[in-house]
Protein backbone atom coordinates (compact mmCIF):
# COMPACT_ATOMS: atom_id res chain seq x y z
CA UNK A 1 0.00 0.00 0.00
CA UNK A 2 1.02 3.60 -0.57
CA UNK A 3 -0.27 6.98 0.51
CA UNK A 4 -0.38 9.67 -2.14
CA UNK A 5 -1.02 13.31 -1.36
CA UNK A 6 -1.18 16.63 -3.11
CA UNK A 7 1.83 18.83 -2.42
CA UNK A 8 1.58 22.56 -1.88
CA UNK A 9 2.86 23.24 -5.41
CA UNK A 10 0.27 20.99 -7.07
CA UNK A 11 2.47 17.95 -7.45
CA UNK A 12 2.13 14.50 -5.93
CA UNK A 13 4.15 12.96 -3.12
CA UNK A 14 4.16 9.24 -2.40
CA UNK A 15 4.58 7.88 1.11
CA UNK A 16 6.13 4.42 1.26
CA UNK A 17 5.60 2.73 4.65
CA UNK A 18 8.36 0.94 6.51
CA UNK A 19 7.42 -2.75 6.93
CA UNK A 20 8.63 -2.50 10.54
CA UNK A 21 6.16 0.33 11.24
CA UNK A 22 3.24 -1.61 9.83
CA UNK A 23 3.84 -4.43 12.29
CA UNK A 24 2.30 -2.25 14.98
CA UNK A 25 0.43 0.49 13.12
CA UNK A 26 -2.15 0.89 10.37
CA UNK A 27 -1.93 2.84 7.12
CA UNK A 28 -4.52 5.23 8.54
CA UNK A 29 -2.28 5.89 11.55
CA UNK A 30 0.68 6.44 9.23
CA UNK A 31 -1.32 8.92 7.16
CA UNK A 32 -2.34 10.81 10.28
CA UNK A 33 1.31 11.09 11.28
CA UNK A 34 3.22 11.63 8.01
CA UNK A 35 0.82 13.43 5.64
CA UNK A 36 1.19 17.21 6.03
CA UNK A 37 -1.74 18.78 7.86
CA UNK A 38 -4.53 19.80 5.53
CA UNK A 39 -3.23 17.97 2.45
CA UNK A 40 -5.56 15.90 0.28
CA UNK A 41 -4.48 12.29 0.46
CA UNK A 42 -5.53 8.79 -0.50
CA UNK A 43 -4.39 5.30 0.47
CA UNK A 44 -3.85 3.26 -2.69
CA UNK A 45 -2.49 -0.05 -3.91
CA UNK A 46 1.15 -0.10 -5.00
CA UNK A 47 0.08 -0.61 -8.61
CA UNK A 48 -1.64 2.78 -8.69
CA UNK A 49 1.69 4.56 -8.53
CA UNK A 50 3.29 4.66 -12.01
CA UNK A 51 6.58 2.80 -12.33
CA UNK A 52 7.65 5.00 -15.24
CA UNK A 53 9.31 7.99 -13.62
CA UNK A 54 10.53 9.68 -16.80
CA UNK A 55 8.25 12.61 -16.07
CA UNK A 56 8.07 12.32 -12.29
CA UNK A 57 8.10 16.08 -11.87
CA UNK A 58 4.97 16.39 -14.01
CA UNK A 59 2.73 14.22 -11.85
CA UNK A 60 -0.34 16.14 -10.73
CA UNK A 61 -3.23 15.48 -8.34
CA UNK A 62 -6.48 14.86 -10.23
Amino acid at each position, binding site marked *: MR*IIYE*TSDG*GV*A*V*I*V*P*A*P*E*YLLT*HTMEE*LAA*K*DVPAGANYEIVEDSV*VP*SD*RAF*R*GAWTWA
Partner: protein
Amino acid sequence: MATIINADTSDGLKLTSDTSGQIDFQSAGSTKATIDTSGNLKFDSGFGSVGTAYGCRAWVNFTGANGTIQASGNVSSITDNGTGDYTVNFTTAMPDANYSVVVTAGKQGEPSGTGTPVCSLRDNSTAPTTTAVRIGVEHSTTAGAINALRINFAVFR
Protein backbone atom coordinates in the same frame (compact mmCIF):
# COMPACT_ATOMS: atom_id res chain seq x y z
CA MET B 1 33.59 -20.35 38.58
CA ALA B 2 30.75 -18.67 36.71
CA THR B 3 27.86 -17.25 38.69
CA ILE B 4 24.47 -17.32 37.07
CA ILE B 5 21.90 -14.78 38.27
CA ASN B 6 18.28 -15.61 37.66
CA ALA B 7 15.19 -13.54 38.38
CA ASP B 8 13.20 -15.17 41.13
CA THR B 9 9.93 -13.33 40.52
CA SER B 10 7.75 -12.55 37.54
CA ASP B 11 8.98 -8.95 37.53
CA GLY B 12 12.17 -9.74 35.64
CA LEU B 13 15.76 -9.19 36.65
CA LYS B 14 16.55 -5.71 37.95
CA LEU B 15 19.99 -4.27 38.58
CA THR B 16 19.87 -1.27 40.89
CA SER B 17 22.59 1.14 41.95
CA ASP B 18 23.63 2.29 45.38
CA THR B 19 23.09 5.90 46.47
CA SER B 20 25.66 7.15 43.91
CA GLY B 21 23.15 6.33 41.17
CA GLN B 22 25.80 4.76 38.93
CA ILE B 23 26.14 1.17 37.81
CA ASP B 24 29.58 -0.11 36.88
CA PHE B 25 30.52 -3.35 35.16
CA GLN B 26 33.98 -4.33 36.19
CA SER B 27 36.44 -6.97 35.09
CA ALA B 28 40.00 -7.68 36.27
CA GLY B 29 39.81 -4.76 38.65
CA SER B 30 38.81 -2.05 36.18
CA THR B 31 35.53 -0.62 34.91
CA LYS B 32 34.58 -1.86 31.43
CA ALA B 33 31.11 -0.32 31.16
CA THR B 34 29.00 2.16 33.09
CA ILE B 35 25.45 3.46 33.19
CA ASP B 36 25.71 6.85 34.83
CA THR B 37 23.12 8.84 36.75
CA SER B 38 21.86 10.49 33.53
CA GLY B 39 21.27 7.12 31.88
CA ASN B 40 24.29 7.42 29.60
CA LEU B 41 25.77 4.10 28.60
CA LYS B 42 29.56 4.18 28.56
CA PHE B 43 31.86 1.38 27.51
CA ASP B 44 35.53 0.67 26.99
CA SER B 45 35.59 -1.67 24.00
CA GLY B 46 39.27 -1.04 23.32
CA PHE B 47 39.40 2.71 24.07
CA GLY B 48 41.35 2.13 27.25
CA SER B 49 38.70 3.80 29.40
CA VAL B 50 34.93 4.06 29.36
CA GLY B 51 33.40 6.59 26.95
CA THR B 52 29.80 7.47 26.13
CA ALA B 53 28.16 5.39 23.40
CA TYR B 54 26.25 7.69 21.02
CA GLY B 55 23.60 5.54 19.48
CA CYS B 56 22.12 5.60 16.00
CA ARG B 57 18.60 7.01 16.52
CA ALA B 58 17.20 6.10 13.10
CA TRP B 59 18.39 4.32 9.99
CA VAL B 60 17.03 3.10 6.68
CA ASN B 61 18.14 1.43 3.47
CA PHE B 62 15.77 2.20 0.57
CA THR B 63 15.46 2.19 -3.21
CA GLY B 64 15.67 5.63 -4.80
CA ALA B 65 13.41 4.90 -7.76
CA ASN B 66 10.33 4.04 -5.70
CA GLY B 67 11.12 4.54 -2.01
CA THR B 68 10.80 0.86 -1.19
CA ILE B 69 12.39 0.19 2.18
CA GLN B 70 14.69 -2.83 2.45
CA ALA B 71 15.26 -2.48 6.21
CA SER B 72 14.98 0.26 8.80
CA GLY B 73 14.94 1.26 12.44
CA ASN B 74 12.80 4.05 13.92
CA VAL B 75 11.63 5.08 10.44
CA SER B 76 7.89 5.06 9.77
CA SER B 77 8.06 5.87 6.07
CA ILE B 78 9.86 7.46 3.14
CA THR B 79 8.10 10.25 1.29
CA ASP B 80 9.00 10.28 -2.40
CA ASN B 81 8.78 13.99 -3.25
CA GLY B 82 10.21 13.58 -6.74
CA THR B 83 13.34 12.38 -8.51
CA GLY B 84 16.18 12.22 -5.98
CA ASP B 85 14.06 14.05 -3.40
CA TYR B 86 12.94 12.24 -0.23
CA THR B 87 11.67 12.87 3.27
CA VAL B 88 12.58 10.37 5.97
CA ASN B 89 9.85 10.25 8.65
CA PHE B 90 10.72 9.06 12.16
CA THR B 91 8.58 6.68 14.19
CA THR B 92 9.70 8.22 17.48
CA ALA B 93 10.62 11.89 17.35
CA MET B 94 14.12 13.16 18.08
CA PRO B 95 14.67 15.23 21.24
CA ASP B 96 15.45 18.24 19.02
CA ALA B 97 16.43 19.01 15.42
CA ASN B 98 20.17 19.30 16.13
CA TYR B 99 20.92 15.71 15.19
CA SER B 100 23.57 14.66 12.68
CA VAL B 101 22.50 13.01 9.43
CA VAL B 102 24.61 10.70 7.30
CA VAL B 103 23.45 9.79 3.78
CA THR B 104 25.15 7.73 1.13
CA ALA B 105 23.92 6.53 -2.25
CA GLY B 106 25.15 3.87 -4.62
CA LYS B 107 26.39 4.59 -8.14
CA GLN B 108 23.73 2.47 -9.83
CA GLY B 109 20.45 4.17 -10.63
CA GLU B 110 18.43 6.28 -13.02
CA PRO B 111 19.49 7.71 -15.37
CA SER B 112 22.20 5.07 -15.71
CA GLY B 113 25.87 5.86 -16.09
CA THR B 114 25.57 9.23 -14.40
CA GLY B 115 28.68 8.84 -12.30
CA THR B 116 29.01 9.80 -8.66
CA PRO B 117 25.94 10.66 -6.58
CA VAL B 118 26.08 13.56 -4.14
CA CYS B 119 23.79 13.40 -1.12
CA SER B 120 22.59 16.45 0.76
CA LEU B 121 20.17 17.83 3.30
CA ARG B 122 17.49 19.90 1.59
CA ASP B 123 17.60 22.38 4.44
CA ASN B 124 17.58 25.28 1.98
CA SER B 125 13.89 24.56 1.35
CA THR B 126 12.82 22.37 4.28
CA ALA B 127 14.52 22.59 7.66
CA PRO B 128 14.98 19.34 9.58
CA THR B 129 12.42 18.83 12.34
CA THR B 130 12.14 16.44 15.28
CA THR B 131 9.86 14.20 13.20
CA ALA B 132 11.34 14.25 9.69
CA VAL B 133 14.25 15.33 7.52
CA ARG B 134 14.36 15.98 3.76
CA ILE B 135 17.31 14.72 1.74
CA GLY B 136 18.39 14.84 -1.89
CA VAL B 137 20.58 12.86 -4.27
CA GLU B 138 22.13 14.62 -7.27
CA HIS B 139 24.75 14.04 -9.93
CA SER B 140 28.18 15.32 -8.97
CA THR B 141 28.79 17.34 -12.14
CA THR B 142 25.39 18.11 -13.66
CA ALA B 143 23.65 18.66 -10.29
CA GLY B 144 20.62 16.94 -11.79
CA ALA B 145 18.52 14.86 -9.41
CA ILE B 146 18.98 11.10 -9.73
CA ASN B 147 17.31 7.99 -8.34
CA ALA B 148 20.09 5.89 -6.87
CA LEU B 149 19.40 2.17 -6.68
CA ARG B 150 20.32 2.10 -2.98
CA ILE B 151 20.25 4.95 -0.49
CA ASN B 152 21.51 4.55 3.08
CA PHE B 153 20.55 6.99 5.82
CA ALA B 154 21.38 7.27 9.52
CA VAL B 155 20.79 9.77 12.33
CA PHE B 156 23.01 10.22 15.35
CA ARG B 157 22.17 12.31 18.39
